[in-house]
């Protein structure tokens, strides 16, 4: 081979790039996320269901949230009529997060796993969770 050193160096760089996903994941656990829905509010519900069926929410929740945002913020309409005719108040914090108060165990589970970084919390205040104990919070004042 002519210029063998240079060519082998090039091949090594190529291999380093192409096999990155393989060696990057050595020894890292690949655990499927299980979003939890066992919040006190959900436990109180007589029938555990979201505003729309689970399959729809799983695939389209981001689209629904986007529509809710446009409806509430741009059109001033805060009433959502679900596919089963039930009415809900359009509000991330007061409707969605009232039941799903466990952002870390619910939203973040799948989002972190799939590396999705939604920009909900650029504007909304993320719910305070048990991690910050009320006692500690008081002490700060």
């Amino acid at each position: 081979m002519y210029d063998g050193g240079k060519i082998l160096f090039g091949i090594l760089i190529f291999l380093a790039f192409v096999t990155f996903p393989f060696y990057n994941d050595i020894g890292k656990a690949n655990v499927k996320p299980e979003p939890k829905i066992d919040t006190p509010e959900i436990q109180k519900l007589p029938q555990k269901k979201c505003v729309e069926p689970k399959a729809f929410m799983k695939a389209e929740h981001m689209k629904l949230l986007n529509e809710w945002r446009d409806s509430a913020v741009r059109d001033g309409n805060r009433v959502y009529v679900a596919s089963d005719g039930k009415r809900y108040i359009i509000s991330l914090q007061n409707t969605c997060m009232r039941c799903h108060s466990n952002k870390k165990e619910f939203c973040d589970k799948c989002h972190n796993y799939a590396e999705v970084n939604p920009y909900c919390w650029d504007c909304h205040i993320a719910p305070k969770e048990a991690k910050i104990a009320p006692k500690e919070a008081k002490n700060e004042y």
Partner: protein
Amino acid sequence: MGALFSFVAVILLILLAYVGVEVAGMQPIFGIVIPYAAVLTFIAGVIYRVIKWGRSPIPFHIPTTCGQQKSLPWIKQNKLENPSSSTGVIGRMALEVFLFRSLFRLSKSELRDGRLAYGSDKWLWLAGMAFHWSFLIVLLRHIRFFATPVPSYLNLLESLDGFLQVGVPRLFMTGIILLLAVTYLLLRRFYIPQVRYISLTSDYIPLFLIMAVASTGILMRYFFKVDIVGVKELTMGLVSFNPTIPKGIGVIFYIHIFLISILFAYFPFSKLVHMGGVFLSPTRNLANNSRMVRHINPWNYPVKFHSYEEYEEEFRKKMKDAGIPVEKE
């Protein structure tokens, strides 16, 4: 003809994946076996091609140049267009690889009022840049399916790509640019007569294939949602050599991964391997130093020569007898 054949071939590939997954239920074949085979073919094939090029001798020193060569000290050398050192060659190659310098110089000629006129033609360069760079970014964005956690610079790339915040999931600009650019690259083969004339099936297949890959990806992200957690389970299983097929991933995912597998497997055997070839083009990667360094043709064999001394040694007596002057008595 070549275009039609390629188009039908890609449609058949899509149908094959659809029928294979939806009717025959061969998820393990399309989700595990074919991707592994494709990646293996890609890596082995590219290395094979590069080594094969490396073994080809370069009989002549043939850099193409388009600037003032290194000359007298008071003549300014164009160090990038006519490099005489390795640094210059690296600069020239970097311009070529990252900015497609030689394509930027493309000109077109046409008859105007019976006279031949030349003009610059930057559209191919522009579409080529848009296509290659957005393809690279799209590829890098996909690392999120193959790593947990994703390196932070990739998150930055993703947030830049989606910074327009159009819709949810956020619209990625590169996906759209990729599709538009590849469409331009296809249309120019249809509408520019000279380009159409020289276009072959092997030119159309990658274009239609990449178009199909990009379209299925865009459809999957924005329209026909798939179970993304399931997809990541599958892809992470692949890269950790612990493959699984989670239930309930939409068929469009299998079509997407099948098409990209075909693209990867086809890569080393097609024009696409210019990814490696650009680095091994002797017209670009040689320094124009043929007046300073002698280039020896590697296939030169040792020539058997007969020097004058040896000649005289052999025929001295006969030369003397014939009265021919000799150097050594």
